[in-house]
């Protein structure tokens, strides 16, 4: 069932029912369906509305700080002694990660739809901060659901959200991580469906979210493509990005999917290793199932109960993945590999010391894969990695792991 014929284009999905092959769809309670259909209508109009696009672009330039730079990591390249390594520096965006690209787009939609209240789920807190930020910018009240475990390990972001005026609700059910936060956000949405807009933070959930979030994040890949042509006069040989839900990765990958010469690698959270239960590598170790509005690869037991994942990185701590990634895996266009906690931590330290950049733990996973691959490639070859978030939020976690008192 997972064998799919190679399509004419890898960029055509989803179909009108929100499907990427067998993945995606609209698996939601009836209460939400009329709203999901409204959102789809509004999104279809906004996509081609020059006013909407102009506003998005204006805020992108003046509020987020786009385009983000593309940076040649000279010292890291020399240290690894192989392919040239470039970073797309979305960690320099306002709020410190790629999440703001999507939040600005979605709050403009919320405004068009006349919604009065914003809700969001968050894992690492980056999406929560970005949602709280745009809610403040547009004067709307914002409620952020965050797993109780994550509230503890991402305290600086919790504080930032509160400063921005958002209400942060710790979710104690399950393991208290991103999956549980998403359940609770969905419960809020079903209850307050009339006036509330739910800003989903990743390229997952019911149609049209996966497509919509991808489109808002594709600015990463579009810019990077132009910047690479300018810097090197050609496309990169390899793209690498971390995948939790997969929004930064699909944002970088999508504009390159039909370029056959570009190898594409998505990096999952391998946690403490795939031989045990403590990881979040749904594409490598999971199987297709239905959760949070879409069909996709999930970590689940024999009875179809969803497992709790584990990752050092709260942003990758999710047992599912955006549906487009599931499809890209099955058709073989993108290769997905796991990176373990300790490998990500070592990469985090290496980048900090060689380039003076403190990366978030999420892109540290992508970096660990780059560190493995670059030395095996020619010096003329080019790797482009999405450095999708900065590590300020993670310094306490890392400090604890390295035994450094703070």
């Amino acid at each position, binding site marked *: 069932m997972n064998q799919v014929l190679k399509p004419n284009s890898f960029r055509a999905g989803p179909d009108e029912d929100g499907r990427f092959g067998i993945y995606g769809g609209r*698996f939601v*309670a*009836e*209460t*939400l369906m009329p709203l999901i259909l409204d959102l789809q209508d509004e999104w279809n109009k906004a996509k081609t509305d020059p006013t909407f696009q102009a506003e998005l672009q204006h805020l992108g330039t003046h509020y987020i700080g786009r385009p983000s730079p593309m940076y040649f990591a000279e010292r890291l390249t020399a240290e690894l002694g192989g392919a040239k390594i470039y970073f797309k520096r979305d960690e320099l965006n306002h709020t410190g990660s790629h999440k703001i690209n999507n939040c600005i787009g979605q709050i403009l939609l919320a405004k068009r739809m006349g919604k009065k209240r914003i809700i969001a789920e968050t894992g690492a807190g980056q999406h929560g901060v970005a949602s709280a930020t745009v809610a403040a910018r547009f004067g709307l009240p914002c409620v952020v659901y965050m797993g109780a475990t994550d509230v503890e390990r991402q305290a600086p972001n919790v504080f930032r959200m509160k400063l921005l005026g958002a209400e942060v609700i710790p979710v104690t059910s399950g393991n208290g991580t991103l999956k549980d936060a998403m359940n609770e956000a969905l*419960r809020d949405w*079903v209850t307050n469906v009339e006036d509330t807009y739910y800003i989903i933070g990743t390229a997952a959930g019911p149609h049209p979210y996966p497509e919509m979030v991808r489109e808002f994040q594709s600015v990463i890949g579009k810019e990077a493509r132009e910047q690479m042509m300018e810097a090197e006069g050609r496309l990169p040989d390899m793209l690498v990005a971390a995948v939790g839900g997969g929004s930064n990765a699909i944002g970088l990958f999508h504009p390159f999917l039909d370029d056959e010469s570009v190898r594409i690698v998505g990096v999952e959270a391998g946690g403490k290793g795939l031989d045990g239960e403590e990881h979040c590598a749904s594409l490598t170790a999971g199987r297709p199932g*239905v959760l949070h509005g879409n069909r996709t690869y999930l970590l689940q037991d024999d009875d179809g109960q969803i497992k709790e994942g584990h990752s050092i990185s709260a942003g990758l701590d999710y047992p599912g993945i955006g549906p487009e990634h599931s499809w890209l895996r099955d058709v073989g266009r993108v290769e997905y590999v796991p990176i373990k906690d300790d490998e990500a931590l070592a990469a985090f330290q290496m980048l900090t010391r060689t380039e003076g950049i403190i990366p978030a733990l999420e892109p540290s996973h992508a970096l660990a894969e780059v560190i493995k691959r670059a030395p095996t490639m020619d010096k003329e070859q080019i790797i482009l990695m999405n450095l999708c978030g900065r590590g300020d939020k993670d310094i306490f976690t890392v400090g604890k792991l390295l035994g450094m008192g703070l």
Partner: protein
Amino acid sequence: MTARMDKRFADLKAEGRPALITYFMGGDPDFETSLGIMKALPEAGADVIELGMPFSDPMADGPAIQMAGFRALAGGQTLAKTLDLAREFRKGDQATPIVLMGYYNPIYSFGVDRFLDEALKAGIDGLIVVDLPPEMDDELCLPAIAKDINFIRLATPTTDEKRLPTVLRNTSGFVYYVSMNGITGSALPDLSQIAGAVNRIKAHTDLPVCVGFGVKTADHAKAIGAAADGVVVGSAIVAQVAGSLDANDQATSHTISAVSTLVRGLATGVRAARLVAAE
């Protein structure tokens, strides 16, 4: 089987009273106790049984049903065991319709065809799968109808005139009107609104319209029963189970009787409903 469901509603119509539809969670807190609860329901006055299939991520359920599901899973409940519950129950009761209620992933994981075959053999009459709206009918609804299992749809306050025909299109057995937006176990809304909504749905279908979400007492059951063809009670029953457990969430000698007592009271309310309507 659709015949058992249709006969039950036809008989109740002849009797001139609404149905009492009782939800409980399969396997909560353990298989044997929940089988005991299931067997006790018809005798206490339940006309239709909704058998909950526990799921790790019950996105449309409030705390009471969430906790019931987690207790069941902790007690080792699986979809196969939930079907076993129905099979055991059917040995002693051929008349009471059973509706399985839950989320899609455990069914998808089990395999849709295999699930429907096993469900038929176990004496299941209908399915309510919360996260399968009409847009997803190819997944389970149409295969279920082809095997003569009712697919019961939820209509909600957000289901407007434009959407209602879509919701009703492949619905059979009865229509489950969720009387408010939100999760299970929330507060009961205005009764006159409920009556209006039931009449609005009835203008589009001949199926019985049953109302749930928020019914806790015999008085609620009586009031809603005056306006609807059936009253669904879920969270209150599940809370009754929870209240009867020991400190380790294990069943006690009065777990089953606690449920029976509540259901007996609700049944009195339902049986008095049309007397109110006639006043």
